[in-house]
């Protein structure tokens, strides 16, 4: 049994939470410690089983329609509306929980809660401020959002939008794949680039197929992978200039790389380590092909 300190580093390493230096140090330790290697393998086995076995469903179409209708009603209500305390707390879930916990305690013990501890928050308490400040802040956010005007931001928006659009029913793939040999020829007739096509089912990334998308003034290629419940789009197009840095937008990670004259971007709501693993698998396969 590894000591607690080592065990905590083992999990952090397994979850991709160590920085490069600490990860390298831990890999050094792994080489000399059979116990930690075995523990790591056991963690990997359980993770693979969870990702392969656990059932998951997409949100029912009826639910999506219900929510859209409810939002329509909400958005069309232009009359003055007094925000309830609980609505305000929606912007600040940590404070909400503190309040909730305090209320729960108060309810159970029949007395007033003590002051909650202070916690960091997403909302920075904006909503608890005056309504006027709220409006001004949101308006400022809307107006000065930098990506609205910068071309780099436009590319990021295009990529995220293309990814989100692909998740709509019946938009995911134009050509289905059981192996890469059906996808590659399809691209030849439908997009302007000829990206590398690989399947990594054995590693947990199943190639679902390919799709044509239009951005950067060209017909770009999209390869679609399934990873657990997540869809990963790998876009490729011909580009020049500085390669955008890896970033996260609207909850989706974007990882960029180039190979020859092609730009690639993998987009998904997987974790970073999981997305970068697919990137490294693709790059290693490309490397083998170009040198083999």
């Amino acid at each position, binding site marked *: 049994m590894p000591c607690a300190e080592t065990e905590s580093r083992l999990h952090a390493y397994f979850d991709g939470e160590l920085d490069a230096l600490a990860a390298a140090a831990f890999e050094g330790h792994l080489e000399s410690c059979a116990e930690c290697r075995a523990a790591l393998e056991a963690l990997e086995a359980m993770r693979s089983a969870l990702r392969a076995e656990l059932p998951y469903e997409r949100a029912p179409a009826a*639910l999506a329609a219900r929510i859209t209708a409810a939002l329509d009603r909400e958005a069309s209500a232009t009359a003055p509306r007094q925000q309830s305390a*609980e609505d305000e707390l929606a912007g600040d879930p940590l404070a909400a929980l503190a309040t909730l916990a305090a209320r729960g305690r108060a309810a159970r013990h029949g007395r007033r809660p003590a002051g909650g501890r202070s916690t960091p928050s997403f909302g920075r308490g904006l909503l608890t401020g005056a309504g006027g400040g709220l*409006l001004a802040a949101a308006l400022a956010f809307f107006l000065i959002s930098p990506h609205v005007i910068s071309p780099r931001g436009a590319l990021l928006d295009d990529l995220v939008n293309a990814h989100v659009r692909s998740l709509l029913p019946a938009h995911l793939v134009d050509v289905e794949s059981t192996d890469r040999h059906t996808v590659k020829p399809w691209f030849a007739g439908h997009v302007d680039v000829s990206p590398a096509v690989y399947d990594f089912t054995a590693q947990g990334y199943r190639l679902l197929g390919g799709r044509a998308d239009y951005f950067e003034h060209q017909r770009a290629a999209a390869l679609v992978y399934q990873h657990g419940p997540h869809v990963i789009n790998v876009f490729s197009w011909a580009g020049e200039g500085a390669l955008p840095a890896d970033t996260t937008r609207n909850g989706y990670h974007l990882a960029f790389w180039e190979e020859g004259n092609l730009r690639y971007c993998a987009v998904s709501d997987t974790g970073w380590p999981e997305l970068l693993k697919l990137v490294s698998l693709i790059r290693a396969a490309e490397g083998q092909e170009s040198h083999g």
Partner: protein
Amino acid sequence: MTVEPSFTAARRVRFDAQVLPHLDAAYRFARWLARSAADADDLVQEAMLRAFRGFDGLRGGDVKAWLFAIMRNCHLTGIAQRDRRGFVPLPEEGDPQHGALVCPAPGPESASMRRDEERSLARLLEDLPPEHREVLILREIEELDYREIAAVTQVPLGTVMSRLARARAALKVRWSMRSEEERDAMR
């Protein structure tokens, strides 16, 4: 205070672009939080409306973790309200406390199927304490990082790490018991 229609419409456009795409992820998480599919529907809808009302409070933050945190709060609020009212929900047909995601198949052949189901990882997860189940789902399935999990579950990073380690250990024990049973059954 009067909300300008054009302003609300602009917020709706941003909400549709930034939050609604995470509906499927929210629903997956809701299925692990709620007792039934119908409860999950209600939970997701409530969370989406709360998120919309509180959307202006989100400033370039992590949309998915933010939405999950709101939904989890809605869930806990619901539990707290039921507790306060002394409300005990009747068990629903085909939807007992266990196996919220697995519908038991009716019929004579269901005995062996139920044995499989009882050994399924979903069932093993269902048997874990909620905070263990939740941290495993958020990390292994939804693939949130430690910081995001801390934000959703509203505990410090260190607690996320120790909870995750304990949850993995607990699931591993149950899982290896299943593997042993399977080996015994093969003999």
